[in-house]
């Protein structure tokens, strides 16, 4: 009979021990992100190497979906931290009062253009940048040769007659990348010339896609010859074995940045701050540099495969105010 009487109390003790241990061990943070899903595991692993006591629960979707979801959850936010979302989206969230201002330890080390402009005016920044996400063209060399479409070197080239029906680009109404393209063309030239360019380009476009990755993926499988997309996806597909060249048009490159922020009202402030502190560290920037050629921490960026070395000079001046 002894075992039977012992059992409940032993169980209870075990349960209590587990509960205590897990309390002491891990704070769970819900982190919303648009970081490419192939990289998420790596991000969590590197962070946990430094902070094993914080567990990251990712909610990942494309930029548009994650932004829509955050806005829809405005009255009762589910996320504690946003790590890796377009700065243009974070600005929308900030206007809605959804971000908690916080200056991560070491924010002064970052390139000022990668930090919320309010920081320059003495306020705590609402968001801090991670890396730049640069427009690029993916060109399929096999299909180009077969269908007699030359490799473009500029945005202007894409309006030439031989490109008619061979260009795919993201829809600026539904894709962050598409929006970035339009914004950068309007900034590269003036408004009138910019629209004129887009009218001429439109004649050559085979179709518009919802996602910014899609045009490059379609170029990679030969569905189209030219896909207007962004550099990260092009470089990644090329190293997967796709017969593509990543072209950086000579007029200049539009860009947006991935950034991080704390969600207002989180009850896990301390852990959220720890994550943000780490997200701007040198170590984290070295991590970003494995996929992105331009990162927020000056002097960290090493040239990476399939990117030009002078990419920083070719990025247009963007204003994230």
């Amino acid at each position, binding site marked *: 009979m002894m075992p039977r009487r012992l059992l409940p109390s032993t169980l209870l003790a075990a349960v209590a021990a587990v509960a205590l241990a897990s309390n002491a061990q891990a704070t769970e943070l*819900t982190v919303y992100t648009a970081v*490419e*899903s*192939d990289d*998420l*595991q790596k991000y*969590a692993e590197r962070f946990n190497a430094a902070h094993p006591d914080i567990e990251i*629960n*990712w*909610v*990942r*979707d*494309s930029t*548009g*979906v994650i*932004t*829509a*979801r955050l*806005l*829809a*959850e405005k*009255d*009762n936010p*589910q996320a504690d931290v946003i790590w890796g979302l377009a700065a243009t989206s974070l600005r*929308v969230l900030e206007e809605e009062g959804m971000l908690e201002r916080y200056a991560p330890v070491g924010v002064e080390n970052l390139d000022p253009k990668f930090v919320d402009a309010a920081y320059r005016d003495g306020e705590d920044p609402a968001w801090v940048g991670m890396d730049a996400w640069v427009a690029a063209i993916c060109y399929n060399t*096999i299909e180009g040769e077969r269908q007699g479409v030359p490799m473009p070197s500029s945005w202007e080239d894409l309006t030439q007659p031989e490109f008619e029906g061979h260009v795919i680009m993201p*829809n600026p*109404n*539904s*894709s962050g990348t598409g929006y970035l393209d339009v914004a950068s063309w309007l900034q590269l030239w003036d408004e009138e010339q910019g629209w004129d360019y887009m009218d001429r380009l439109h004649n050559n476009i*085979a*179709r*518009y896609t*919802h*996602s910014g*990755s*899609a045009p*490059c*993926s379609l170029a*990679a*499988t*030969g*569905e*189209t010859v030219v896909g207007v997309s962004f550099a990260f*996806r092009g470089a*990644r*597909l090329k190293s*997967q*074995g*796709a*017969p593509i060249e990543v072209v950086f048009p000579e007029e200049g490159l539009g860009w947006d940045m991935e950034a991080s922020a704390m969600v207002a009202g989180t009850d896990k402030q301390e852990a959220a701050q720890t994550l943000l502190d780490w997200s701007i560290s040198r170590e984290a920037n070295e991590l970003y540099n494995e996929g992105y050629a331009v990162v927020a921490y000056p002097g960290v960026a090493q040239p990476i495969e399939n990117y030009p070395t002078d990419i920083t000079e070719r990025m247009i001046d963007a204003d994230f105010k």
Partner: protein
Amino acid sequence: MIANAFSTSATKPSLESLIRLLALLAGVALLVVGLLFPLVAMLVKSLQDRAGDFIGLANFAQYFQTPALVNSIANSLRVALMTTVAVVGLAFVCAYGITRTCMPGKRLFRMLAILPILAPSLLPAISLVYLFGNQGFLRDVLAGHSIYGPIGIVIGMSFWIFPHALMLLTTALTNSDARLYEAAEALGIPKWRTFLTITLPGVRYGLISCLFVVFTLAITDFGVPKIIGGQFSVLATDVYRQVVGQQNFQMGAVVSVILLLPAVLSFIVDRWIQRRQVAQLSARAVPWQPTANPLRDWIFALLCYTVAGVILLVIGTAVYASLIQFWPYNLSFTLEHYTFQGMADGGWGAWFNSLKLAFSVALVGTLVIFFNAWLIEKSEGYRPLRQGLHFMAMLPMAVPGMVLGLAYIFFFNQAGNPLNWLYGTMAILVLNTLVHFYTVCHLTSVTALKQLDPEFEAVGASLKVPFWITFSRVTLPVSLPAVLDISVYLFVNAMTTVSAVVFLYNSDTRLASVAVLHLDEAGYFASAAAMAVLIFLTSLVVKLLHAVLTHVLLNNAQRWRLAG
């Protein structure tokens, strides 16, 4: 009429009728919370500006002044009508072949024909690209037309909607009274007149329901137009563009309201038809058995197996896609795509979550939906409640998944909603999926129940047997094939659905179908195909179990259908 009079007199204000009332109220409450309140939250959005102030119909005025948005109405109608004609025509021929001829290999064909329902809609989209895209094997078939546009949308939608139509029409054609056909034959009436005067009128309720189900599924579908539609915009993709692309929830809500119109129309027509529907399988009916007619049987076999061949081609292409290293440039075989390297924590966790969701929805959903349908069809009294429940049961089909998902966020995530705790749990995914796929299950239940003579209930009542005994001893066993169909339908849809849950999953409840979307977006087409094939195989195994179970049950509990 006589039966009605009898049962009315048998109704007694007792414990039994109280329980009936409570059950009805529970059914109503479920749909009010799971459907109506979220939709109202959505409708309110359509009348607000970005700051949340009431602005009346200003959003609608703006909508109709924007040609780019209004054009989508005509586009949507066009592809939905084309799909309806194609799908209902084919499904009717096939359902007729299954139920009214002695064509060879019926069971095999039924298994093949149901296959598309087992796959996420991304699967046909991926296959269509491999078949008809610029690098496709069969691109010459399209004679220079692009698959990215209306053609691709109609083919893709027809593929996944076909089994839905077949399910409804087969149920409608299954029960028939041999006495009518014998009478027709004895009178020497030609076959075509028998068809027009006995067969068609007998299934008109099922047929018209089917037309509306297919039309509404087509007009609200999001997956196929998103992937293969190119820049051909339809209403469902407009909702996505407004909400996800521009974070304009208000305009997204306006487009959603416009998308709700087909449902309202569908409901009105349904009521109108229902008033004219007469129970076909009376208590004295003799089930009709087809007799062999080699010419007719082989023609139907040929037609059915052509359809089955196309289905196999589409699925086979996806399987092929998942096994190729880098299509079309490196065609060596590999299993590597099934390790899902493009996913943060592997794809298999997501697959397991999907499994949990699918089993929960199938179990809870089948019981709730069939019982509710029975309360609506076979009870007396509480007419407004029953009609209200039926209306709400018709509504989900017209609500695009994405709209339902967003509506759930607006409603369940409101500060101060007592149901707040549901948000972010598996339970909300179950509720959402159950509601999302309510209508077809409801219609299947109703079609099956309508064919049972109301005298069953009347006799039960006059013998003073409580309604739940009649339900569990007579109605449920007699309708078992339909009930099993419903549970499998719910299971596979929970496995494959994307649009509704994409806003509701969280880190612990990531789903396989959402993973397909993410993998495809990131350019891992082969891994996306692999995940789609994995979902398909899972559903297939469950479907096979269902087939075995149905077979056993038909041999036991359903022997009466074969009697005579």
